[in-house]
């Protein structure tokens, strides 16, 4: 595919070039699966670099999400949509770049003098939107709040942190309870976001509704009219004077219906949507009124198998199901190739991805052999519990047909999200669908799902494998990436053998924009950061 070139009038900033870049990015992704994340990062990084044509200030960006934010307090937040807004008004200590590398955010530099200590030097000259300074005391306040605030949802994420000291006004020392190689990546999201101590203390619980003055980000909170819209505006005293922000305002609107959301974009009522359903992707790409960016995500879609009771306490039967399922057919037919078949919980966008391990290929002969090995040569029956949304239902029907060819009979139980969570947490299922939005560090996609954990946890399958536990603990202690990558390869191998989950697909999250939107830099965590965006 040709690199961006001047068009007939000698301009670079044409729609054709933008589309070329998108195609490059998509092509880059295809290469990335075999070559590694580097190629994808180069391709994806280009949109920002080659946007010639000067960005101009002004305009209101209208964004449509499927649901409203739940709270404006990052320490109390449990929902993905909240994060979309936070990444524009709050800033974390560390940030991700387009290849998921960890870069300075509000922390300029950091060192680890020993595995249980992290020293961070904070950026100077940063002010919260309420005018107070960001400094070590503020950072310390935030960590304490995350650990002690009764309703804090961040406690688990900062569990490895024992205490935080303000060494000097712009240096903090984080003392860890145990080595935690995943901590840096965790600090690129909500757990690293800095809230103004003054505003947090003065406003109390009202902070959840009103975040005026609370962040340091390129945009600041203006108002939130519940069920209608949330408005943020440009922060003209933002510390980073290069590369934005350009937009005057951003207006978020919840539009629950997918079709209506897409039509709103196509009719010009909104400028950005965060997700295009696989079934709509081809049509939207052909539409002149919308530009689609295929953003490979960190997400993972899988089915958890309950190892604590029959039939899936029997490993051979788990394998029988895995070999009877045709992953490629599912990704092609149900996901319409808006996604990549999985070999495990680590997505191809991650540095830890092992492309030498292939996704399980369908093999009916082996499936039958496994059935015999498991003592059920004539097949067996079980129930799949899955969320009652169209793509899940379609996939369940396809799997049902695939398994029937292998002699396995599957019933489908459709449930809503709350029931799914309840069934999962209480292990009341045989096979249950599970979608995880993904974390930048592989630890976030793996540890809590596969480590032996007493009591209620996200380890719904109930897997308890000492070798795996030892490996998982080691991945947290070792900090060098190449070493961790080797460990994660071993983890993936064990997971493919033990099959606590049948991994299906790593979805691509296509985002769609009005052609007026320029300068968007897609980062695979799926979060839409608008600092560099401007409207033509």
């Amino acid at each position, binding site marked *: 595919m040709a690199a961006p070139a001047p068009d007939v009038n000698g301009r670079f900033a044409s729609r054709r070039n933008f589309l070329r870049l998108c195609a490059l990015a998509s092509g880059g992704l295809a290469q990335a699966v075999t070559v590694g994340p580097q190629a994808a990062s180069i391709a994806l990084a280009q949109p920002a670099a080659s946007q010639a044509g000067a960005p101009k200030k002004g305009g209101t960006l209208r964004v449509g999400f499927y649901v409203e934010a739940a709270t404006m307090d990052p320490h109390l937040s449990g929902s993905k949509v909240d994060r979309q807004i936070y990444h524009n008004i709050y800033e974390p200590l560390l940030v991700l770049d387009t290849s998921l590398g960890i870069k300075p955010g509000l922390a300029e530099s950091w060192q680890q003098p020993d595995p249980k200590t992290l020293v961070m030097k904070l950026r100077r000259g940063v002010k919260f939107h309420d005018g107070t300074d960001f400094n070590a005391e503020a950072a310390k306040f935030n960590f304490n709040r995350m650990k002690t605030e009764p309703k804090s949802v961040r406690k688990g994420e900062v569990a490895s942190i024992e205490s935080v000291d303000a060494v000097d006004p712009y240096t903090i020392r984080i003392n860890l309870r145990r080595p935690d190689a995943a901590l840096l990546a965790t600090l690129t999201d909500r757990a690293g976001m800095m809230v103004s101590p003054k505003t947090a203390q003065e406003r109390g619980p009202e902070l959840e509704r009103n975040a005026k003055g609370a962040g340091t980000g390129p945009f600041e909170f203006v108002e939130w009219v519940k069920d209608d819209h949330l408005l943020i505006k440009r922060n003209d005293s933002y510390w980073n004077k290069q590369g934005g922000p350009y937009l005057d305002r951003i207006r978020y609107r919840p539009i629950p219906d997918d079709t209506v959301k897409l039509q709103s974009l196509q009719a010009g009522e909104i400028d950005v949507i965060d997700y295009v359903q696989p079934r709509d992707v081809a049509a939207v790409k052909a539409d002149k009124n919308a530009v689609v960016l295929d953003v490979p995500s960190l997400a993972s879609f899988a089915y958890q198998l309950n190892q604590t009771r029959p039939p899936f306490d029997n490993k051979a039967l788990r394998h029988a199901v895995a070999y009877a399922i045709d992953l490629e057919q599912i990704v092609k037919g149900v996901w319409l190739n808006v996604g990549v078949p999985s070999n495990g919980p680590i997505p191809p966008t991650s540095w830890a991805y092992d492309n030498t391990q292939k996704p399980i290929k369908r093999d009916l002969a082996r499936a039958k052999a496994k059935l015999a090995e498991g003592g059920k040569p004539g097949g067996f029956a079980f129930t799949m519990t899955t969320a009652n949304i169209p793509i899940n239902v379609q996939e369940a029907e396809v799997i049902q047909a695939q398994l029937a060819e292998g002699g396995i009979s599957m019933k489908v139980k459709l449930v*809503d*999200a709350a029931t799914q969570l309840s069934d999962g947490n209480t292990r009341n299922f045989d096979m249950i669908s599970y979608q995880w939005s993904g974390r930048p560090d592989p630890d976030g996609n793996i540890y809590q799902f596969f480590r032996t954990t007493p009591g209620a946890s996200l380890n719904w399958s109930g897997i308890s494998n000492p070798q795996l536990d030892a490996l998982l603990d080691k991945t947290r202690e070792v900090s060098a990436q190449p070493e961790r990558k080797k460990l994660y390869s071993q983890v993936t191998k064990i997971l493919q053998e033990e099959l606590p989950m049948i991994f299906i697909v790593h979805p691509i999250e296509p985002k769609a924009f009005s052609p007026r939107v320029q300068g968007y830099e897609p980062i695979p965590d799926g979060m839409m950061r608008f600092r560099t965006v401007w409207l033509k």
Partner: protein
Amino acid sequence: MGRLVLRRLLATIPVLLLVTAGVFALIHLTPGDPIDVMMAESVDASVKANLRAELGLDRPLYLQYAAWMGRILRGDLGRSIRNREPVIENVGRRIRPSLQLAGLAMGISLLVATPIGIFSAARRNTSVDRFGTSFALFGICMPNFLLALLLIFFFGVKLRWLPISGYTDPAEELLPGLRSLVLPAVTLGLALAAVITRTLRSSMLDALSEDYVRTARAKGLTEWQVIRGHVLKNALIPVVTVLGLQLGTLIGGAVITEYVFALPGVGRLVVDAVFARDYPLVQGVVLLIAVGFILSNLLVDLLYGWIDPRIRYR
């Protein structure tokens, strides 16, 4: 009249008790827990346990129900678990769009259905009548969401005459507000119009066969004078019944329309609350909807007495 109202209000108490107990049992016995939903991605068992204890969710069901009833009798509907705002505020915010939508839908359906119903009856078995019947059939059979999507496609996407989704309050900005409500009101109003058309047609045919109509015709009145002066008022009684019954449905049951058009109404509020297992919100909203239903039925009955002097309540 006053005694009637009092008796009716007293009779609502057992109804409300049954409804609230039923809903309470249903929503609590359904698998799923609001804390799990709110903290789906978190593993912190102690935080969840604390939240549950704080909300009293770890106590036996009958105690929770008693506590809730106690608060209701003091006029406190409780707080939503998700956004911790009082239930009353949550509903208050959403009732206005729902009422406006319901009112507009009723207005549109009456405007459309009344002439069709009258002409169907007056020109019985002619092509006008057949059109009316077909219209009614179409209105009943057309699925709500399909009609909504079709209307959005034609008027929003293709013609760009009306906004695709979203709500603007007509009380604040009249024209943009009405524009945002037209398509949803037509969607809701169509099924209602179909019912009204049929009801009006059959009640008019009944009235037209009465003796007093023959007398009126014999007196030399034109057909139109007969209908307007004698028949219409009687024929409208069943229509009033239908409207009264439908009002509750229009307010609480317009969920699909509200979803498709992204309107912040009561229907969406209660369905989202059910999905999130937001117990106080579900219970509070259902209670309010039940009260609304009962009051609108009472209103309809009182209206009867005014419209039809023959009806007298003892």
